[in-house]
């Protein structure tokens, strides 16, 4: 392959990457000099050595005469029927944090949830999950940030008195004819919506306002103008031959990425002899994972989006023989895109991530021209997860400040942190007669409200959800409440003077309103976690008038000038409500590979113009933030991730990064997440970001294999010619190992992997992988067993991007195994590269000899260590640890085991049941979590298994196969739907 791949700009420019080195060694010195300095002036090391030898012998002698500690075995008093010590139970539940929904299965071991898995029965998420869903189990055990009980004015309080006082105040407000406002995140629970309705009739004058920090308000209103209803349709990416996205990161953060990732991957799959591939074009400002997957990507400024949309509309209108509209860009690529779209009418999707009504109306008009409604865009099963109307929130803040509001109940919202004008909101709060927060964790808003009636974590609660109309799911508690908290709905019931039993309420609601059936149906719905009602298909008419109004408004927008700033959500933090989760905090961003910070992405050319180098800090208006030169960033733009810069959110979140919500604006009745007319200035000083991008580099060898669709259609092994060559040349003097039973293997389809990093967090949760902190990450000591390598190729202004998940390759001829002096790592009879921690003495020879750089060394004791005060340093947060996986000691090497604990569990189950293992019965954590099913695990000794078939696929190759390491992990080449000359 003539394609040159690179991992960082330093590598591209052939500069030495000195970031890790500077941390390790002071410049200009070699290791011996440093050691000499270290021991200078200290007593002779030989004598010390002898002292230590003598001491350790004596210690061993004393230790040997010591008694073993007495351990207790405490049985149940009355063993619950369904709990078996040593075995896990799985409960179906639902995850919804106000923006992202997933149907999940909670793995509960001895009464404590330890892992979240996707629910394969769900027709929406289909067993997929995201990094945030995977990490949500850890926040259950957040000892520090979760509220332990009710409080008044930040002082501990009793539930009884709190209820009495709040009820009295509610009555007083309602009696005086004033209003109470329930300010909530979107509520997709149908029973809760009914309950809120009842609450409003109990306290007349009560209003319900929905608030979202990152809202879809513009889209909702656009659809109201276009179609008469403020609803968001379902997008069938699995039916879309052509996808054009204008700044919508639909695989990462836009609307419903878990569903879209699955559907998108269906159209990107080339296995089973499939020869067709969808075509994906992405216009965007900052490089997103959707942009990385796109066949063609155009970096554009936020202000150029409207012109491009109108331009595309005009091209299509011409093809359709309709009249063009005023204005619009004449971007050179538009005719080609319009042509492809026009050929794929009813089989295409055009989406925009903008929160501007007018832009969204043009998008609607484009999709109408393409007749996508009812085919790929379905208004009969709309999404219900986005509900906020930004103007109502603005109005509320005004009303609060003009004494028009009596009481405020905050429901899973934190406006003091994420509202654009938090000072006004705080001022408004002071004027209220009653302010109650139902949030379950401490946050910036808590200090400004009178009462806190903390809610349960979702794993402790009953709940239901209707993310898409007609698709219901249930959530059930998987653990008894850890703290003195109370379900939000029960708080409302209590204040309404009703029996606070939400379980009874929800069950009754389901039996009468959803299931319309008996106990058996309820039990089944609870067991499955999901329930579906068929929606009548319908199409709704498009109001063409809305378009002309929108276009004239768009043409009247003032011209943008100067630098443009775009604010986005990244994959780990989202809108910032999970920032205190150390797993997410340490998850490297799949594009920049930076963790523990947000930063201002700036394009290489702009950086050069402004004189921005590595570690620079820039100032945007009054906002200081570290800069990062990001290939693929649009010229003259800056992208900043939201969700960082908390001030009172917990020890992990506080003080990390900058709060970019302050930069959000409000115009046209909606919040805006971009602005123009700024000139960033360099600020004195430097700030080091923790990046993992050059860690574990494989030094420029042909690791990614890529081809184009047309070449693939001619010969399926295109781009992978080397594979056949190496296979042929493989000869060895040694006897080849024979695997008489199973031979485990993984095949990863690079076409399907979208880089979402759900696998990284799933692996961390399953395998007790420690969090090491920013300083250690900067020293290349991140412990993740699976990493997503990101490679660029081509022009740094707009590079091609490839994601490659990399875990231990379980080589059958492993270079690590034969260098271990104590045989701590060796090969199993099932093809696993085994690691015996208790045998490892920490020479790290294996790490040095591993060509894939997948082994990790425990530089410290990460559990029970004050210096690593994340999730393994308190009794409560250690409850999340998987009891079937050893917590590694200091000084040993660790790595991916192919989730051997899961292999053994399922093998034993099959043995006990006297049957063969089924394909896909064993799912490693990474493969289970993957929303696009890119990671396939199986037994290659079973010729019928999916993995065996994938290994025979002409696209299949091994990493560094020329080394004859015979890895068990293989990859399928990336095929892009690009024109020949572009490749």
């Amino acid at each position: 392959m003539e394609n040159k791949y690179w991992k960082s700009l330093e590598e591209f420019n052939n500069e030495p990457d000195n970031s890790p080195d500077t941390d390790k060694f002071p410049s200009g010195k070699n290791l011996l000099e440093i050691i000499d300095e270290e021991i200078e002036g200290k007593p002779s090391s030989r004598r010390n050595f002898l002292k230590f030898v003598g001491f350790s012998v004596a210690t061993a002698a004393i230790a040997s005469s010591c008694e073993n500690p007495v351990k207790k075995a405490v049985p149940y008093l009355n063993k619950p029927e369904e709990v078996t010590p040593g075995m896990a139970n799985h409960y179906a539940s639902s995850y919804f944090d106000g923006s992202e929904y997933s149907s999940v299965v909670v793995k509960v071991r001895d009464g404590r949830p330890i892992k979240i898995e996707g629910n394969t029965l769900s027709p929406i998420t289909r067993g997929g999950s995201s990094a945030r869903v995977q990490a949500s189990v850890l926040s259950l055990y957040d000892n520090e940030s979760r509220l332990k009980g009710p409080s008044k004015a930040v002082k501990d309080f009793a539930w009884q008195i709190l209820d009495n006082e709040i009820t009295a105040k509610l009555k007083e407000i309602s009696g005086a004819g004033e209003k109470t406002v329930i300010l909530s995140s979107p509520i997709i629970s149908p029973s809760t919506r009914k309950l809120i309705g009842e609450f409003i009739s109990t306290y007349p004058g009560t209003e319900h306002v929905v608030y979202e920090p990152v809202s879809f308000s513009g889209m909702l209103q656009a659809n109201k103008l276009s179609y008469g209803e403020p609803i968001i349709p379902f997008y069938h990416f699995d039916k879309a031959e052509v996808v054009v996205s204008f700044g919508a990161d639909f695989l990462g953060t836009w609307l419903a990425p878990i569903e879209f990732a699955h559907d998108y991957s269906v159209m990107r799959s080339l296995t089973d002899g499939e020869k067709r591939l969808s075509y994906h074009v992405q216009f965007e400002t900052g490089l997103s994972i959707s942009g990385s997957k796109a066949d063609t990507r155009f970096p554009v400024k936020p202000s150029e989006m409207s012109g491009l949309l109108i331009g595309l509309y005009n091209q299509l209108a011409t093809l359709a023989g309709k009249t063009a509209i005023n204005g619009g860009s004449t971007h050179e690529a538009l005719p080609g895109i319009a042509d492809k779209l026009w050929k794929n009418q009813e089989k295409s999707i055009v989406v925009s991530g903008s929160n501007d009504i007018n832009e969204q109306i043009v998008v609607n008009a484009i999709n109408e021209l393409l007749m996508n409604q009812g085919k790929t865009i379905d208004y009969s099963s709309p999404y219900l997860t986005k509900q906020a109307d930004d103007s109502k929130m603005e109005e509320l803040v005004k009303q609060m400040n003009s004494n028009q509001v009596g009481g405020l109940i905050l429901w899973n919202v934190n406006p003091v942190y994420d509202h654009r004008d938090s000072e006004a909101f705080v001022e408004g709060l002071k004027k209220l007669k009653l302010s109650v927060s139902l949030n379950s964790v401490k946050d910036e808003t808590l200090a400004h409200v009178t009462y806190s009636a903390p809610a349960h974590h979702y794993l402790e609660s009953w709940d239901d959800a209707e993310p898409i109309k007609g698709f219901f799911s249930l959530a059930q508690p998987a653990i008894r409440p850890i703290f003195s908290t109370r379900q939000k709905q029960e708080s409302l019931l209590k204040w309404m003077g009703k029996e606070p039993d939400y379980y009874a309420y929800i069950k009754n609601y389901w039996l009468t309103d959803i299931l319309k059936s008996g106990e058996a149906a309820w039990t089944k719905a609870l067991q499955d976690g999901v329930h579906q009602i068929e929606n009548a298909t319908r199409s709704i008419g498009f109001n063409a008038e809305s378009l002309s109004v929108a276009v004239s408004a768009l043409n009247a927008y003032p011209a943008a000038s100067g630098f443009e700033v775009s604010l986005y959500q990244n994959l780990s933090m989202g809108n910032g409500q999970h920032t205190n989760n150390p797993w997410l905090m340490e998850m490297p961003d799949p594009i920049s590979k930076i963790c523990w910070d947000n930063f201002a992405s700036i394009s290489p050319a702009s950086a050069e113009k402004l004189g921005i180098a590595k570690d620079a800090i820039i100032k945007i208006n009054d906002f200081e933030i570290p800069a990062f030169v990001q290939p693929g960033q649009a010229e003259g733009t800056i992208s900043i991730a939201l969700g960082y810069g908390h001030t009172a959110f917990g020890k992990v979140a506080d003080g990390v990064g900058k709060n970019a919500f302050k930069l959000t604006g409000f115009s046209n009745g909606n919040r805006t997440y971009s602005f123009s007319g700024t000139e960033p200035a360099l600020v004195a000083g430097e700030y080091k970001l923790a990046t993992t991008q050059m860690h574990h580099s494989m030094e420029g060898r042909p690791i990614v294999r890529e081809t184009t669709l047309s070449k693939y259609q001619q010969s399926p092994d295109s781009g992978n010619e080397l594979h056949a060559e190496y296979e042929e040349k493989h000869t060895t003097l040694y006897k080849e190992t024979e695997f008489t039973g199973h031979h485990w293997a993984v095949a990863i389809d690079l076409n399907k992997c979208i880089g979402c990093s759900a696998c990284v967090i799933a692996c961390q949760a399953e395998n007790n992988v420690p969090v090491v902190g920013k300083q250690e990450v900067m020293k290349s000591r991140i412990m993740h067993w699976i990493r997503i390598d990101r490679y660029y190729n081509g022009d740094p202004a707009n590079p091609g991007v490839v994601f490659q998940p990399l875990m231990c390759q379980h080589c059958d001829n492993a270079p690590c195994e034969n260098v271990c002096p104590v045989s701590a790592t060796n090969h199993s009879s099932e093809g696993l590269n085994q690691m015996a921690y208790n045998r490892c003495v920490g020479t790290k020879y294996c790490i040095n000899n591993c060509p894939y750089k997948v082994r990790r060394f425990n530089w410290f004791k990460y559990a029970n260590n004050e210096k690593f005060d994340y999730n393994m340093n308190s009794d409560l947060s250690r409850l999340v640890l998987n009891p079937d996986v050893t917590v590694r000691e200091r000084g040993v090497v660790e790595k991916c085991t192919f989730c051997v604990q899961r292999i053994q569990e399922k093998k034993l189950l099959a043995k006990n049941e006297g049957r063969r293992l089924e394909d896909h019965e064993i799912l490693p954590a990474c493969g289970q979590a993957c929303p696009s099913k890119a990671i396939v695990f199986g037994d290659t000794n079973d010729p019928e298994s999916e993995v065996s078939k994938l290994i025979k696929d002409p696209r299949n190759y091994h990493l560094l196969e020329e080394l004859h390491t015979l890895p068990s992990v293989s990859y399928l080449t990336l095929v892009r739907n690009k024109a020949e000359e572009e490749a």
Partner: protein
Amino acid sequence: MSHTSIKSGFRQAKMLLVSLLAFLLFSLSSFNSNAQDQGKQLFEKNCQVCHKIGGGKLVGPELLGISQLREREWLVKFIRNSKELIDSGDKLAIQVYEENNKIPMQSFTNLSNAEINSIIDYIDNWQPVQKKEFTVDINKKDGFTETEIRRGERMFYGLIPFENGGTASCISCHYTKNTDSLNWNPSAHDLAIAFVEKNGMNIYESMSEPSSQVMEKAHQEYNLTGEEIYNISAFLSEFSQKETKQFKIFPKRLMLFILFAILMTLAIIDLIFTKKLKYRIVHLIIIAVGLAVHLNIAMTEAKALSRTQDYAPDQPIKFSHQIHVGENQIDCQYCHHIADFSKSAGIPSNDVCMNCHNVVLAGTNSGKFEINKIKRSIENGEPIEWIRIHNMPEHVFFSHSQHVNAGNIACETCHGPVAEMHIMKQFSDLSMGWCIDCHRDSKVNFKDNEYYSSYMKLHEQMKAGKFDSVTVEQIGGLDCMKCHY
């Protein structure tokens, strides 16, 4: 009717006389005539599992005043063989059978007429236990004065004789230090806890009305006064606060080690400086033997490092596997029932114990004291904290299900002759070598378990006659990641 009442009246008079005599002679509170004694014993042995006197229905009906309700002749027939009576069409018998959920009463053909009559007599004459009255406050559990405590202590240790006699002191049975469970008597600490804790035993009641035959026998010659019990309870309440000490035996090996260390040092000193012994061979022998002993000790100790073979700690309840498994033939998996499908074999929860101990109220050796601990634990809501005997290092994964269910290995293979152990001990050394040895030799159920059909290559080799059975080793039983992950 009148006949029986006269008869019983006469018996009562006789009894009164006898008991008065007994009272005068022995100043003991025993009321029992011989016949009564026999009736009581037979009742306890045969009837009380299903019947209560004056306590309502258990499995069978309430028996208080039964002889006034039914004729004695019929009763004897019914008790001897109720089924025969029902089959013969006796209306009353059928009625009784149907009233009691059609659970037939066990037949007692082994009992003579006289014996059955003695049981009925016992029931007729049964009277609720008269609680002894004490002048001191019996509910007082703390706040004793120092004098009371010290006096109690001296009584407990046998330094002050009891007023009403009794040869041995309390401490001769109720040790103040924890010892092996073969001493079936509760230790002093156990007693103290039992009396002091919530829902605990009443020391006055248990001293005056021994709850089991074992205790009655042991306490036969003691008749403590209220004040004595009061003082002893004062001592026990103080004692319950103290921690018990384990008997520690000074390790012989360590003594040997020190002895030879001294000898060797002396030998070296003499060899170099003092030179009192002429023959240097003596020094050399001492040093050589000393080194040998030291090496030997070091090696044995090193091998046993963190291994706990033969570990047999004192458990909170003197539970005997010998009685349960050996004598009563209870299957291991009746109590450890999750061993079949879980990695852990499971310590039975209290409700499993109560399945039997609802009716088995007293043990042969320990009376009611140990069994009562289960009940008290339930009443107090505090689970029993057993001492774990088999401790695997944290990096070892062991699954009972794998061995018991898939491997079909008998429990005794690893746990040894449990049926002979009063005190449970760790039978095997649980070393890795021990595991590996077994994995090398054990055969796998290769042909019959459908799971192994995926091991096609091994099946082919087997057909080719290379081997006739497959060991655990051949299917990867020696892989590190079978147990370490």
